């Protein structure tokens, strides 16, 4: 896979989705952990200032899709752990479905048409 030098900016709203998916897959995680995971999955194709995750986490918490709790990390450090909530899971499912549909439609448009 070719590594592009130009990184994509994070589309607004996608960050929320990424956070939800991460928490849904990995369970309870602190802010740093979420940021690292997103970095890994996107394979450095994403231009993300890690710090921006924190306002996003606040938004998600305000909307009720994740919840937070202070705990102790692996290295005995105090950290805030986030987990996805049930409404969060529902939201995740809805958005996943949405994205899949959108990208299907877009791909169909962007591929050269093969017959009728």
């Amino acid at each position, binding site marked *: 896979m070719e590594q592009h030098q130009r990184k994509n900016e994070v589309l607004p709203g996608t960050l929320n989705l990424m956070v939800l998916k991460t928490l849904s897959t990995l369970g309870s995680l602190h802010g740093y952990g979420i*940021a690292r995971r997103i970095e890994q999955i996107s394979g450095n194709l994403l231009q993300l200032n*890690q710090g921006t995750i*924190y306002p996003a986490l606040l938004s998600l*918490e305000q909307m009720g899709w994740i919840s937070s709790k202070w705990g102790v990390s692996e290295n005995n450090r105090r950290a805030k752990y986030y987990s996805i909530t049930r409404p969060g899971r529902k939201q995740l499912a809805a958005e996943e479905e949405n994205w899949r549909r959108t990208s299907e439609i877009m791909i169909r448009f962007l591929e050269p048409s093969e017959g009728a």
Partner: protein
Amino acid sequence: MTRLRIFFHRLLGLFLKRKLERELEEEIRSHLEMQIEDNLRQGMSLEDSRRAARLKFGGVEQVKEAYRDKSRLGWIESLWQDLRYGARALLRRPIFTLAIILTLALGIGANTAIFSVFNGIVLKPLPYKDPNRLVNVRRSDKRGIRYQPGTESSFGNISPGGFHDWRERSQSFESLSAHRYNSTILSDANSTTQRTMYVGGLRVATRFFETYGVNAQLGRTFTDQDYSPEAPKVVIISHDLWRYHYGADSQIIGRTVLIDGLPHTVVGVMPPGFWLAKWPSRIWIPYFFSAEEKATRKGGGWNVVARLRPGVSFDQAQNEMDLIAAQLEADYPENNRNKGIVLVPSSADLTMSLGGFERLFLLLLCAVGLVLLIACVNVANLLLVRAAEREREFALRAVLGASRGRLLRQLLTESLLLAALGGGLGLLLGANGMRAATALLSGVPRLDELRFDWHAFAFTAAVSLAAGLLFGLVPAIRAARPDLQEALKEGGRGAAASRRVRRMGNLLVVGEVALAMPLLVGAGLIVQSFIRLQLIDLGFAPSRLLTINVNVPDYKYGRNTGASRPGSQEFVTRIKLYREVEERLNGLPGVESAAVSDRLPVEHGPEPTGISIDGRAPVADEFEDCAELRQNGLPCHGAVGVNRVSKDYFRTVGMRLIRGRLFDERDTADTPDVVLINETAARKYWPDEDPVGKSFTLNFSSWFPKAEIIGVVSDIKTNELNMPLYPEIYRPDSQLPSDDCFLIIRTKAAPEMLAAAVREEMGRIDRDIPWGAARTMEGVIAGTLWRARLSVWLFGLFAALAAALAAAGLYGVMSYAVSQRRQELGLRMALGAEAGDVMRLVVGEGIKLTFVGLALGLIAAFALSRFIVSQLFWVAATDPLTYAGAAMLLAMVALIACYLPAQRAAKVDPLRALRHE
């Protein structure tokens, strides 16, 4: 739903600011440390690790900002900021701010209070259905007459037979009913102690409540069953009776009360406000007309009210009644000869006709309006001045980057802050003002219906606040214009602009002073009037006089039907009663002298009764109240007031005997009728002769007491204080007793102390006699002056307000002028002017303005003077002394207002002022 969650989170965030910040700090620190560790593990050096971590994280401050924005409600914060800044700005000039707030509050509060009272008592119509379809049906002594406004009193009421005739024959009305007013004695069925009360009652014919279109609030109105003679007796009571006498008892329906000694069951309570202005009744009783009564077409007594049928106009109905009148004349000539039927719209009954009261209120309303106007002008003035002073501040802020919108928002917030404070205070003042007004107006009907009038408040508030906002924003709009250079140079004021502002301010001040003058003059006139009223010679000493009014129950002592003659039961019982009362009261310790009288001095109207002087030729003039004299062929020579008094009356009140003798034991029902007259009567009717020994006949019921004058007594004021003396005659109650009476007692000590003892004694004489209020004579006199007192109080208040406001306005304008002219004054002082000269200069300006205002104000006061004449007594509305006094007072106030800024001007350090380029 989510939006609501977000909102609440953010709201909470406002209060948990510090905690959230701390937590974020910790999180970020944690994050960075973890990243650094990872970097270290990957083999980077400590420094590189740190740098890489920070790079990857991004801008910490930006993250914090973004977080902050999301964690709280941004707009609330900037609003709060604006408010704080605004408050600080307002506090920097506390006097100004206070002046504006007070002005707004006073204008709004006073206006609202007065208007609420006016609305509640006078304007608001009583709760009848379609009141303009209601008419009173009256009898007139000439056929073909139509109603004209003001002629109500020339028509009369109708006999029971006549009522039924009208009812049967008319087609124009949906329903017709009738009522008769009399006073009744109400007591509790089960009490052995006295809980008796004297109340006004209406006996009503069928369909009374339906005609008025009012339903009972509790229970029911009368049905046809209630009107049969065998039906159980029922009564409906008024709302205020239920509330105050029966304590809003929820079990009132079905309760038994005694009306004139007979048990009645309460079946309904009327809603508040149901009453007729002319016949204030608190109970309603169904009246059954016997067959005889229905055939009685003689006499009167019944007031008929009707509701027009839908589609029938007033004139159509009147035409029908004319036809009916003609029919009745043909059918019953001896009763209905030339009698007509007139329809009178019921509106006079249905709203409060308060006589002179109305005029007073209108005057007050105008006064308040004037004050409101002055208040608005003042607010405008003050704001304008303040704005001009702040031009520099705003220019500076604009230069430093504040957008026009921001500046406008800032000023708007300030104005709103002022408006809110002023309005809030105004609300408080208004509500309290209403309470004070109700206290002052005790005795005026419909008082319990007074509610704080929100419409008035809203209107007044809107007007004042609009003025405030307008003049608050004008400078904002100007300041936001990019004429910054102009604003910033030359000591911070553009010359042309400031001149304009000065001129505006001057105009406004002149206006305020001019508006305040009529109020001051009015107050001065009213105060003088009041003082003169109080200094009137009463003809007797009012101190230590106790009065108690006594209602002798008709059901026990007999009713005076007009056919009473000496020897009638009702006369005999009363004569005996009054004699006993006088004797026993005179024997009480602490009583100097006691008497019985049918009228109280000062309180009564003249109530003229015609007299026919024996042996005198008829005169050309027409007099009223001579109908019965004329019917019996006696010439009418004039009218007098009739008093029926016990023999100790004159001694008790303190009247002097001028000639002849007073009443004594000799004058009884069996001896010839005697009478005493007062000096005014003697002078008027027997100017050149000795009245003692002469006799005359009174126009008094169907029996003519011709009485001989046995003496002349001194004059006392029987009518209201501002009315002239009236010819009065006195008949002894041992020959002509009254139905009810007043006890008048001259006490040795304070009169109030004796009231209980007197009542006890009366209770021993007869337990069934109910009580009216016990009042001192001084209290009675003060009571008649309540209207004058109210005027004085209110007008004085408004005048003071107006003067204060004008002074405040003047102060504002002068302050501004001084601050504008700092350099000029500094220059003058540097060139040798003394402090005194500077002061004189400044004050001189102020005086000039004041004089112009005063001159205009005097003209205005003069022009408006005729409106106040109705409230004045023995003071001309153009009394020059008052005008001069008011002008001087206002001038002095203005002088003080100018003095303070002038002093400030004189203290200006010339060097500093000059340096203020």
